[in-house]
């Protein structure tokens, strides 16, 4: 220790390091972690994608929970639990709306519709209030009296003989609603009662969603108290459940991976160094790297996506290499305490170059239009740079001569030498395999990259199936195709929505749609409301017309005096406004179907209930004359989004690879050495891809990121082999460090490969074999100098 770095310098470096780590931890502790798909949606979307993103982030679908009560004793018991659960949920105040088929909640809405019928009914026109129009309308309504449907009409007949309430209700009652049994919604296929709830909290507020979900579980426990084993089982699904599940799963998996990784890595390092101190030191750059990466992402993006965190565990594989290189290569100095100086002069340039190539590779991701990929880029760069800085400046202060113990290293070095000696013999074999791999990939062509966006979702298949089954039972419009209206202000949006609605009515008539939901049934534009009110005659005129219209009918005109009074009262009603509705029972519907856009302007949605005769092309043609109206096919839009994402990622990875090659060329200043370094990397990538193709693995964006990691990690190996060739010193320590570094990389990515989270396992399955191949190929293709 005597000749190590000076005491003052040591103190300063360590203090600075500690301060930096603490600052990082402070940043992280105040960071929001997200787990929704939104980080994987483009930052600069086109109009339709923007709609999609707004909907995914804050649309009603992102706040909708589906609840199933399955099994138990019988339908009656399920209905009782459903009612108790519904009551408890409504009382909690956490949900904007809780529906379970209990129509009592419609009473208030019904009063509103009845009171405002002359502003809401689309049938209110001047013609309707002419003598002929009145006669027609009366005949219509009377044709329902004395039929079962007439029971609803009869109590209102004197006040609403033209049937406006009926007309509005027709539009409001959804065409497809769940089966009803014992007064509550039930499944058509399973012994199950159903509830549908929308939370007040935004879909992107996962903490609030978790509270909303936990409340359902509490209320369920209360509702089933004392039922024991007879109680129906609670099933939950919907976007909020998925968000919470993904976050928990990613969190759990990240912790799990970190623990298992730490144990396995610890054992490896202990075996290698036989020194607990060395083990602790080796972990320091890793931890600093993870803290720096997370903090950097938090600072740049404001929040950290769960997947980025998961990715953090993959960084262990590369950052621990730096410590291993240092701890082994700084050993054996002639004068005690100078090992770090020797390492700094001899090996640091190679490590630094390896770092720079990695940074170059990941820098390409920074320019990604997808925040998710950009986060991975920032995380990796900050993490790698921090780990390298700690290795370069921090570790010499703690272990100036590297690790002292020998452990198994001699064996490792021997094994490594053996491999280095043996590998060149397999060159031809590798080349043949590579040719085969290229041929296989060429044959599979574009189908090789066939993984979809959903393959990145950590939601289990069972959860997805439950979701589909509950969705089917609810019969809610699946949101597959949406009609979206965007305009500068509220009234313009409403007017265009009304115009779109008229065109959709034609499609309903053709049987393409069974119905649709639009905000203008509750909130017509002021223009439409004024036109309706304007078509109402004054009391005296109406009275005369009613008398004429009822001539020859079995109906005395004075029975309709309440009608005349209602119309007269309606003539002085103020228009219905959004503010008024926001306070009443219609608030959830209005909020779901109309909203102010984050970037300014207003937007409304029309949810379609399609029949099996539905053709999207007809819908698009019908709405084509309205430029403010977009038809968004969510499945297709997500698909095209992913294709764009994949294409962009391809370009970035290519650019990243190109940057790596240029950097290596600048440093090596020799085409021969450049080829020697790049050759094994290229072959490792080709062989890995070939293996994936042979195993029929559908490849996606994360596999692509994995390939970039192979290049980043593998470039270190190739450069060390290059260094060995150039200096001619194939010393045991360097070989042992390479061997150990590779082992830890393969093990850490191997652990990720068996993760439950598809996004992580995709990276692991590419990098684990790829890194091993990169080392073997570097050994095989390193041009050996004559000894």
């Amino acid at each position, binding site marked *: 220790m005597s000749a190590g770095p000076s005491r003052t310098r040591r103190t300063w470096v360590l203090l600075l390091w500690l301060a930096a780590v603490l600052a990082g931890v402070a940043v992280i502790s105040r960071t929001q972690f997200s787990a929704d798909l939104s980080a994987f949606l483009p930052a600069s979307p086109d109009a339709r994608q923007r709609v999609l993103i707004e909907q995914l982030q804050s649309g009603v679908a992102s706040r909708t929970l589906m609840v199933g009560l399955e099994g138990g004793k019988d339908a009656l018991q399920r209905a009782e639990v459903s009612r108790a659960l519904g009551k408890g949920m409504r009382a909690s105040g956490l949900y904007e709306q809780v529906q379970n088929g209990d129509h009592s909640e419609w009473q208030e809405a019904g009063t509103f519709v009845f009171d405002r019928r002359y502003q809401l009914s689309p049938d209110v026109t001047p013609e309707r209030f002419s003598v002929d129009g009145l006669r027609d309308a009366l005949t219509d309504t009377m044709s329902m009296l*004395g039929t079962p449907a007439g029971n609803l009409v009869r109590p209102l007949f004197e006040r609403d003989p033209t049937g406006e309430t009926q007309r509005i209700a027709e539009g409001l009652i959804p065409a497809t609603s769940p089966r009803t049994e014992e007064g509550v919604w039930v499944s058509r296929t399973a012994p199950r009662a159903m509830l549908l709830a929308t939370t007040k909290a935004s879909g992107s507020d996962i903490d609030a969603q978790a509270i909303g979900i936990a409340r359902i579980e509490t209320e369920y426990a209360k509702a089933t108290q004392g039922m024991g084993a007879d109680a129906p089982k609670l099933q939950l699904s919907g976007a909020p459940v998925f968000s919470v599940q993904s976050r928990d799963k990613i969190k759990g998996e990240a912790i799990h991976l970190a623990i298992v990784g730490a144990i396995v890595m610890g054992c490896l390092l202990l075996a290698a160094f036989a020194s607990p101190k060395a083990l602790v030191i080796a972990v320091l750059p890793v931890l600093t790297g993870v803290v720096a990466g997370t903090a950097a992402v938090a600072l740049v993006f404001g929040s950290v996506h769960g997947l980025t965190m998961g990715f953090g565990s993959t960084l262990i594989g590369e950052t621990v290499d730096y410590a291993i290189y240092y701890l082994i290569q700084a050993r054996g100095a002639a004068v005690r305490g100078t090992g770090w100086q020797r390492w700094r002069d001899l090996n640091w340039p190679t490590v630094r170059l390896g770092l720079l190539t990695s940074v170059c590779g990941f820098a390409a991701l920074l320019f990604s239009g997808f925040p998710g990929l950009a986060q991975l880029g920032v995380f990796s760069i900050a993490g790698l740079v921090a780990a390298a800085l700690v290795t370069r400046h921090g570790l010499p202060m703690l272990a100036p001569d590297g690790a002292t113990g020998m452990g198994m290293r001699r064996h490792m070095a021997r094994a490594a030498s053996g491999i280095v000696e043996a590998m060149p013999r397999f060159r031809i074999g590798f080349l043949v395999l590579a040719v085969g791999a290229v041929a296989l990939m060429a044959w599979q062509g574009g189908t090789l990259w066939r993984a979809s966006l959903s393959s990145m979702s950590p939601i289990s298949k069972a959860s997805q199936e439950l979701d589909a089954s509950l969705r089917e039972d609810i019969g809610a419009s699946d949101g597959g195709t949406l009609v979206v209206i965007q305009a500068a202000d509220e009234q313009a949006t409403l007017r265009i929505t009304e115009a779109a609605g008229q065109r959709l009515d034609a499609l309903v008539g053709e049987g393409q749609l069974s119905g649709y939901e639009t905000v203008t049934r509750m909130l017509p534009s002021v223009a439409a409301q004024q036109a309706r009110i304007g078509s109402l005659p004054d009391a005296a005129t109406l009275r005369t017309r009613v008398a004429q219209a009822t001539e020859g009918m079995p109906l005395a005109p004075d029975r309709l005096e309440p009608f005349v009074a209602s119309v007269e009262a309606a003539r002085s009603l103020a228009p219905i406004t959004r503010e008024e509705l926001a306070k009443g029972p219609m608030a959830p519907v209005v909020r779901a179907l109309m909203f102010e856009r984050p970037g300014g302007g207003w937007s409304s949605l029309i949810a379609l209930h399609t029949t099996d005769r539905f053709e999207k092309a007809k819908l698009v043609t019908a709405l084509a004359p309205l430029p403010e109206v977009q038809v968004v096919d969510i499945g297709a839009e997500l698909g095209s989004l992913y294709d764009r994402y994949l294409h962009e990622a391809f370009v970035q990875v290519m650019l990243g690879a190109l940057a790596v090659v240029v950097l290596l060329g600048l440093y090596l200043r020799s085409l021969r050495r450049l080829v020697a370094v790049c050759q094994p990397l290229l072959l490792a990538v080709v062989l890995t891809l070939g293996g994936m193709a042979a195993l029929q693995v559908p490849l996606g964006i994360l596999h692509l990121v994995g390939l970039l990691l192979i290049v980043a990690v593998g470039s270190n190996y190739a450069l060390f082999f290059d260094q060995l060739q150039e200096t001619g010193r194939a010393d045991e320590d360097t070989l042992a460090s390479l061997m150990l570094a590779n082992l830890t990389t393969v093990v850490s990515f191997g652990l990720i490969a068996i993760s439950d989270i598809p996004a992580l396992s995709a990276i692991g399955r590419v990098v684990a074999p790829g890194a091993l191949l990169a080392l073997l190929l570097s050994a095989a293709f390193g041009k050996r100098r004559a000894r």
Partner: protein
Amino acid sequence: MISGLKTFTDGGLRRARWMLVSLLCAAAPAWAFDLGELMGLLAKQKQGEATFTEQRYVRGFDGPLAASGTLSFTAPDQLVRRTLTPRPETMAVDGNNLVLSRSGRTRSMTLDSVPELQGLVEAMRATLAGNSQVLERYFKSTVIGGADAWTLDLAPVDSRLSSQIAVLRLSGKAGEVLGVEMEFRGGDRSVMTIVPKR
């Protein structure tokens, strides 16, 4: 006979009138004709077309409200009621789907989401199909008369439906339904006369 006794054991003063009638039937074995037999007759008709006229007696109106149109049935579960006067209107039931067309607008609904509506449809559809199992799920039935002139009284089981309709009375001859009468709670009544097309 069997249905009469069943009604008896089930009790219920509201149905006392029908009970009495069915007990009388039971007393005369030569007249014995039960739901099973009636359904057997009805089930033989797989398809039918008819015209109908309807008179509805609604309180507060000075005279009956009239309607007429056509009916068609195809076993097992398609039923179309097409009203021609005073207002063209179509109600078509196919399986679990109900499509209503009136005043140039079409609306569809699923029957099982509105149990009381399903009950009403089944009163007609299950009777025409001769499906006693479905019929008995929604109604307490009472058969009076014999094969050449029968009356089938249906009292709703479902509380929502029975809060609207007191009784449905179908009448006919052999496998043909010739009349449907509905008594609503509150005193309104409708009488439909059916003439099968031959």
